[in-house]
């Protein structure tokens, strides 16, 4: 057996290793930037005129030099898989707003948890009221999508608890 196949295969891998390395360097900053831009976009929907200071994955929200609240992005387990939920709270630990960043719920059914009509219910609530109505709280579940609704509720609770611990609210 000649050495040619080995040489060609090794050379192919080496050349591509270098080329991919270059592509990685070219796109690396862009990827980080895109991720940050997406987080910023979601947080700005909750705190429209604030700027955000990151602290180990949590955010302080500052408006006109004044601290107005905190925000976190938490993962939860929905009906169809993972979902990412952004929670923004005022300094007194009541909810300013909730957004669903990404989810894989059933389109047209569970996916309605990402709509305003459902998410508006969270506004102004304190931690002890954030449960589904059927569990003794204030949040109306979406008909036929109780698991998805509960997943959002649990993610919001998790986010609020983590923020409270982190910033000792």
């Amino acid at each position, binding site marked *: 057996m*000649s050495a*040619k*196949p*080995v040489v*060609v*295969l090794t050379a*192919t*891998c080496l050349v*591509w290793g270098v*080329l*991919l390395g270059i*592509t*990685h360097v070219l*796109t690396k900053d*862009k*990827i980080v*930037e*895109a*991720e940050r831009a*997406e987080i910023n976009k979601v947080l700005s929907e909750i705190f429209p005129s604030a700027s955000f200071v990151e602290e180990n994955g949590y955010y302080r929200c500052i408006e006109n030099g004044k601290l107005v609240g905190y925000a976190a992005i938490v993962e939860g387990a929905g009906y169809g898989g993972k979902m990412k939920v952004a929670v923004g709270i005022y300094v007194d630990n009541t909810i300013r707003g909730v957004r669903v960043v*990404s989810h894989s719920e*059933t*389109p*047209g*059914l569970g996916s309605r948890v990402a709509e305003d009509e459902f998410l508006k219910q969270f506004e102004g609530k304190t931690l002890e009221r954030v449960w589904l109505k059927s569990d003794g709280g204030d949040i109306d579940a979406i008909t036929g999508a109780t698991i998805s609704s509960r997943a959002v509720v649990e993610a919001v609770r998790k986010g609020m608890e983590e923020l409270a611990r982190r910033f000792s609210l």
Partner: protein
Amino acid sequence: MKVQEFTKGLVKKNPVLVLALGLCPTLAITTRVENALGMAFSFAFVLIFSNLLISAIKGFIPKDVRIPTFIVIIASFVTIIDLFIHGYSPSLYEQLGIFLPLITVNCIILGRAEAFASKRPLGETLLDTAGMSAGFALIIVLISGIREFFGTGGIVIFGHQFLPFILSSPATGMILPPGAFLVMGILLAMLKKMGVV
């Protein structure tokens, strides 16, 4: 150089319908027309460029290691498009999920490399892969159009409602997995009836 090398990919040798290859993305990401367009673009990028390169260097590749070499080349182009989409269109990246890296194992690409690009000159390879890409795009856009319309009631592309009317009571099942198989089955049966495949 012949035009047939291009047009055969559209219907007569359509990779999805006739050759029954590349079924996974055809069914998985066709819940929305927008995703199908993104997939069609990424797929075309990888298919055309990897096969052009393979055609260009075919004289240097020893027969024994041609498949591993093809796989490395294809996987590398997939990595490139993966990195670029991640950076420039995060929402599309999220929607396509693992089906973007999985273009690597799409049988159409390796199949064209083995059956066509490794034997033919550059010009013909370009026509062949462009035709196959167009054929693939045609099918996934068609299927996603049917599924999105019946499943959600309308077709939304880049935030614009594409159709002048919407369906008042859509059948969610169409965008769920059973709908994908159903649409594909009926489509194949119709084409068979019309004598296309």
